[in-house]
């Protein structure tokens, strides 16, 4: 208890801040901040496993998040039968072709020694494969995208409940991480950072432009929800009663029946959004808590100690008979899979999938700020970082407005400088993030909640 006092205090402050937003701004805003804090927390846990446990830099978080989002689309959207009829067969054939290419390349790598001949062979397989893919998929893609392009124009998904996508998203991201890890994990730290950053850009480019798969920049909207819709809630008897019960005090003050009805209606509308967000927050908290328990257990297990050994001294760990390459790959996949869960959660919460919105600033670098600010190597720190940084990211605008008004209070309302500054408020969040990161790295390089190593 005593030694965890800092953790408890930090979390209490964070929760207090969110509740303060509820009182000062609105409960709906506070809850959506909380939901996104929880999603960010999942992402930071994934990044923390890679960076904090194993010292691997993964700047491709954006790619895994987007894959998780794609999983949400592919799982929950009902299949578009017409599209499957016109082009489904060809696309399945393409999938087989890709698998065939991969296997033949693996075969070549296994059979032949490293030589120019081998490289030419691989190149030949890739080129022939690409041309065949193009020939098979070209007409199919065209006809799929022609199917009712305003609403579908893609193959659709499986039509399953969207909650499954959280698991599927993890598998998608893990699968990509396996490929990336096989290719890039042998690289030095900063090469790895750049390579993963660039690979994530490729993933986004594919999701953005392969309309038959994800509708691309046309976005997928109206995804199913795991929680009730506001409109349905507003007509349910039990919900209206619940709201009435909650606000009994206020309602009793109004004597006029008509005004009371009106008031109640308003409250039900507000209450329904809050209720929906509460449901989401509950679901997300379950995920966060499960992951926290698992990662905590893992960190203090023999496996966690081995990872720490590998991180701190790769050669020594290798000499002790630990398979460094295999463990690195494993942890790369695990961390990415967790990020994939977060990606699916985010799309579930938003109810829409917008490939155009995935940008490295928001989905890669911000997550890294969270991990470093929170405390790498410490799961509670990473989660706290997710909370604190996301909170600041959202609340930066009001804070900046307050500060600008404070410092320019001597100037007139119409002063050009003041007006210009107030217009550029949205960009102060970047300034705050940057300065925050620099300060933390300088004066508290281990983060707000530093890593704790239990010596046995």
């Amino acid at each position, binding site marked *: 208890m005593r030694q965890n006092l800092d953790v408890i205090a930090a979390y209490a402050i964070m929760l207090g801040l969110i509740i303060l937003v509820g009182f000062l701004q609105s409960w709906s805003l506070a809850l959506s901040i909380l939901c996104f804090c929880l999603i960010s927390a999942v992402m930071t846990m994934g990044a923390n496993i890679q960076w904090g446990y194993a010292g691997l*830099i993964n700047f491709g978080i954006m790619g895994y998040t987007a894959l998780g989002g794609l999983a949400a689309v592919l799982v929950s959207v009902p299949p578009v039968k017409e599209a499957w009829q016109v082009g489904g067969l060809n696309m399945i054939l393409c999938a087989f072709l890709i698998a065939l290419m991969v296997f033949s390349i693996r075969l070549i790598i296994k059979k032949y020694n490293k030589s120019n001949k081998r*490289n030419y062979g691989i190149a030949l397989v890739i080129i022939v494969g690409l041309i065949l893919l193009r020939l098979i998929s*070209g007409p199919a893609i065209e006809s799929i995208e022609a199917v009712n392009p305003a609403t579908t124009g893609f193959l659709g998904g499986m039509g399953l409940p969207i909650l499954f996508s959280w698991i599927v998203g993890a598998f998608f991201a893990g699968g990509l991480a396996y490929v990336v890890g096989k*290719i*890039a994990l042998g*690289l*030095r*730290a*900063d*090469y790895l*950072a*750049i*390579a993963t*950053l*660039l*690979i994530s*850009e*490729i993933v986004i*480019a*594919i999701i*953005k*432009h392969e309309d038959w798969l994800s509708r691309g920049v046309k976005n997928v909207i109206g995804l199913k929800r795991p929680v009730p819709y506001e409109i349905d809630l507003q007509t349910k008897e039990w919900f209206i009663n619940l709201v009435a019960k909650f606000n009994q005090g206020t309602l009793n003050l109004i004597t006029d029946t008509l005004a009371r009805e009106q008031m109640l209606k308003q409250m039900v509308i507000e209450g329904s959004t809050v209720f929906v967000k509460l449901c989401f927050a509950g679901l997300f908290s379950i995920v966060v808590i499960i992951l926290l328990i698992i990662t905590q257990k893992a960190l203090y297990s023999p496996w966690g100690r081995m990872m720490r050994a590998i991180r701190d001294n790769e050669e020594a760990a290798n000499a002790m008979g630990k398979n460094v390459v295999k463990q690195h790959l494993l942890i790369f996949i695990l961390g990415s899979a967790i990020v994939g869960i977060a990606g699916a959660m985010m799309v579930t919460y938003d109810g829409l999938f917008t490939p155009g919105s995935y940008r490295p*600033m928001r989905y890669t*670098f911000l997550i*890294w*700020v969270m991990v*470093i600010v929170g405390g790498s190597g410490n799961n509670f720190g990473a989660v706290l970082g997710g909370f604190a940084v996301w909170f600041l990211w959202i609340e930066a605008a009001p804070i900046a407005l307050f500060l600008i008004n404070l410092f320019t209070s001597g100037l007139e309302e119409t002063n050009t400088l003041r007006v210009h*500054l107030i*217009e*550029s408020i949205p*960009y*102060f*969040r*970047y*300034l705050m*993030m*940057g*300065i925050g*990161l*620099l300060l933390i*790295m*300088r004066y508290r*390089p281990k983060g707000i909640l530093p890593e704790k190593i239990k010596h046995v």
Partner: protein
Amino acid sequence: MDFINSIVLLLNYIFVPALSYGSQLALGAIFVSLIYGILRFAYFTAGDLMSFGTMFTILFTWYFQSLGMSLGVLPTALIAIPFGIIVTIFYVLVKDKLVFSYYRFKKSPPVMLAMVSIGTMFVTQAIVRIIIGPFDRRFFDGEKFILKASEFKEMTGLNEGLTIKSTQVITLLVTIVVVSILFWFLNKTKTGKSMRAYSDNEDLALLSGIDPKKVVMITWVIAAILATIGGTLYGLDKSFKPFTYFNNMLPIFAAAIVGGIGNPFGAFLGGYVIAFSEILVTYAYRKFFIYLLPESIEPDSLLQLLSTDYKFAVSFSILVVVLLFRPSGIFKGKIL
């Protein structure tokens, strides 16, 4: 005739644009490579430093334009570049003093410095957006074309036109001048040699009496100069938008690594490798083959290897391939 037409077509749509885009990337890649070689970390602020320098060049351009100054057929921005450079040099030196020097003295691992450069990336991005806003801006003035397609057709009597924009020529000329001066400086002067020595072997360089502070300072100065010039040329050729500049960081890194990071000359060539492959792979060759092949076997499809949407993806794939087969880059950089 058809043969010449097809060549002109390629010149117009591939060679000329790729050459100017490649020059702009090369300038960026050189300074990323220099910073990597001498300060020994991946400088993630690269794209934003370019947008910072360009922003001040634009501000000075506006100021000069308001004074009524102009270079006639040349863009006014050319007079503004030196002033933009001075501000940028001041900015990077202050940044080094406040931020990077601390980690250098502590001998932090390169990863730490790369992380720190992400912090400065956020800050630089914020400064640019707060001062000039996130919008697309064009600041080109003067004569737009040196050679118009219609003029070329009249001159030669060919079917295909060749357009040469003045910005493309300016880009190429400025790049040649700047890069020649830079390589002369690195190879012939004493300071340049000491920089290369420092990059090769830090301890040995220190033993032989090279002042690390001076080397670091000059590296930053060169970085600021190259960033401002490269950014301004890109902005003149296309347009200035902070977000695009941030994204340009990726092909710049690709160019630096492909060329062998830490090796400025490799980075210079890497810029062209990336630019040419991006444009070569995403160009639709249909018209080209229509000129060359007899009518009976003319292609109906676009003959495009990849759609233009995958422009970025091409350079990254090249990078991945290079990293796999030749981690030290095509032109043998250092593997630190």
